[in-house]
């Protein structure tokens, strides 16, 4: 296959970026999208041009490191698929691809296609946990959990923290990400004691990081590689309202 790529190039956080066009020849349909970029980069290095920087690590769709906009769609055209698991057979020979980083106030671009997603870590630090010190746990089977609740908690816990939901949202909202963690822990008995504080603190951390609010556009769910459902956002809203009413003085 031969492709024409238009790639966002930006030297560092402060620099002004621009789109640059490259030809990608000798591309096999069996290559992953990142392997295609590898091939382009090997070519660039040989001709003395800086390779395109992009984040990646596991290359099997689970670490959440990778993620670019391909023709305006976060993680590209294939449903439920991270950029690293996207394969070139999803594209046509001769196609033009526009490749850009996530764009959101909460995710500043660090270089080319790499953005700073540390805001997500800070949101988790605000409450995305159960406060249980090592060694203080009771026997695991002393807490039976309805299978359907456990399965649902798992579905929510499958979020990989990639940030595609934010990139796809016109408000750059991180609600899908936040709601997935809140839902997971609110579905489980272990998460109950901190349930209200968690919802309040994580939402307020999200707002402090500059992410927008949710106006029910559902773009997030459409691009989410782990098919996290917007039902969790509705659940988070309920959690949040209940918590705010029950504990009007809770620290936010």
């Amino acid at each position, binding site marked *: 296959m031969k492709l024409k790529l238009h790639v966002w190039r930006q030297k560092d956080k402060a620099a002004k970026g621009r789109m640059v066009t490259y030809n990608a020849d000798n591309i096999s349909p069996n290559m992953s999208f990142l392997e295609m970029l590898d091939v382009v980069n090997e070519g660039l290095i040989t001709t003395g041009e800086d390779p395109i920087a992009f984040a990646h690590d596991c290359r099997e769709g*689970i670490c959440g490191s990778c993620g670019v906009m391909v023709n305006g769609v976060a993680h590209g055209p294939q449903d439920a698929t991270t950029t690293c698991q996207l394969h070139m057979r999803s594209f046509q020979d001769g196609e033009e691809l526009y490749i850009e980083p996530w764009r959101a106030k909460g995710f500043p671009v660090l270089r080319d296609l790499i953005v700073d997603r540390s805001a997500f870590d800070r949101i988790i630090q605000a409450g995305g946990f159960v406060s249980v010190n090592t060694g203080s*746990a009771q026997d695991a089977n002393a807490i039976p959990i309805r299978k359907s609740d456990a399965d649902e908690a*798992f579905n929510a816990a499958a979020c990989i923290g990639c940030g595609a939901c934010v990139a796809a949202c016109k408000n750059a909202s991180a609600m899908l990400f936040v709601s997935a963690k809140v839902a997971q822990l609110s579905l489980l008995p272990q998460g109950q004691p901190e349930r209200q504080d968690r919802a309040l603190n994580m939402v307020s951390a999200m707002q402090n990081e500059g992410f927008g609010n949710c106006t029910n556009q559902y773009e997030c769910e459409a691009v989410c590689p782990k098919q996290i459902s917007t039902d969790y956002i509705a659940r988070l809203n309920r959690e949040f309202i209940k918590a705010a009413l029950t504990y009007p003085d809770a620290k936010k």
Partner: protein
Amino acid sequence: MKLDAKIPAGPLESKWENHKFDLKLVSPANKRKFEIIVVGSGLAGGSAAATLAELGYNVKCFCFQDSPRRAHSIAAQGGINAAKNYRGDGDSIHRLFYDTIKGGDFRSREANVHRLAEVSGHIIDQCVAQGVPFAREYGGLLDNRSFGGAQVSRTFYARGQTGQQLLLGAYSALSRQIGAGQVQMFPKTEMLDLVLVDGKARGIVVRDLVTGAMESHAADAVILATGGYGNVFYLSTNAKGSNVTATYRAYKRGAAFGNPCFTQIHPTCIPVKGDYQSKLTLMSESLRNDGRVWVPKSKGDKRAPADIPDSERDYFLERKYPSFGNLAPRDIASRSAKEACDAGQGVGESGFGVYLDFADSISRLGEDQIRARYGNLFDMYERITDENPYKMPMRIYPAVHYTMGGLWVDYNLMSTIPGLHVLGEANFSDHGANRLGASALMQGLADGYFVIPYTIANYLASSKLEKVTTSHESFKAAEDSCRKRVGQLLSIKGSRTVDSFHRELGKIMWDKCGMARDRAGLQEALKAIPKLREEFWQDLKILGTNEEINQSLEKAGRVADFLEFGELMCLDALTREESCGGHFRTEHQTPDGEALRNDENFCHVAVWEHEGDATGPAKGHKRHQEELVYEHVKLATRSYK
């Protein structure tokens, strides 16, 4: 070099309990006076950093990814073992202990493995308390599945994403401590050197991967939990950033390396497609619970799998190992697949593949049941290969997956450098010559949650630790040498890319030090690697500078270390004149092709010591031995027949 494994006296079952009582404690008020560096945020590092912070120590934690949640533990699929005996199927601490020793082909320490089995149950308790959504049965209790090398069901799992869920559990505990200010987290920061003061590990030098700044951090003790070095083979199931740099730098500073040649080749990975291939993808071993492995009986049979009648298929694992069948341990399953392919029975374009067939299970249990168990793995397979495994068998081939070798540690998980502790895949400790499936997650979390918090207190309480700051000359010297090395890499300005060198090294390692090894091949590799290394230092091409995000430069530093380390692996493989577990020397096999151990001469850990200056090239590697003493298990020929 004096090697003292510090194995406590007394009966096996009470060694750990007694030892915990004998270890010195640090009082709550004194804990906050200590600084501990944890390099790595995977299951081992993340759990250690969180727990030490909960106890009140001041912790600094480092990882090279942009978030601690992305450590490669996230990719573990199948499950985690624990001797809970919730099934009532005859499991016990002793059985898990025995299976692990036997699975490791009698090359691990009894006392360590027993402790691992003892704490395994607490891990599950802890993870459930954190909200890890393990699979459950309709009654609401935890479910289990079976893994290779065991005849009981002791593996806990969260669909095909167990590592992810366990890591997110550890990450949440870590995040809580970061939020509380007890852990200072340094993502996108790579450790480049270890710093010793008065012979003790007192800090590290790191490079900020965004700005390129070299910085030192001082502490009272250092923990390395930096994962495995499978990427020395270029193609492996490890993440692209997985490296040997942290442990190899420690090795050059004097920490001994245990059994570097012990690598695990996993039997069920998606076969290589083309020369652009950048990594290999594992298909979890749990699939062997319901999938049957086979090849056509006749060579070069190109018929579609569905057209090959049962009578013309060779279910070679079931045939050769009737009592374990498709759940034979990894080393055995991998070697059998290689043999079948070498004999011309392999399938797929390249002929390097065997079938993993779910047809029988699907007709027995229905597609929905199989989807519930392995849905995400089947989807992943289809995305990569464009083939639907519900309709046709998967094609799989072995790939490099795990490294049993690692920095040598004593029972307290301390290396030969006082104060330097090593956890998780980065140490050599518990898996001998072959790790059983679902035991790495167990070991990483055992080390981090339940072992190091006790043993490090003993070190801190019983050592004289003068106040040290990063203005100490040892830090300055280490920083300088790191800067110099980066400068050297950037100034070569040759013609070849880092990846081209890495691929070439990988091919040497796979061909000569992979699934089967022999003297002549290893000797060739020992000539080829130094030559390649020399070329690397003369002809490498990296663009850009240090003071920016420079991914080629990051890779180059790692590949430079692999180019030295590969040699050590081959040397270790050459010296170990026996076959055991994942180390198969073709000269040493039984008449029916099984690994032939040599207990008389090799019932020991090979412990390597670096010779030469820490910042220059290795002058040599000196081999020491830690004899393994089996008091409870009788050395036997491993049989899964």
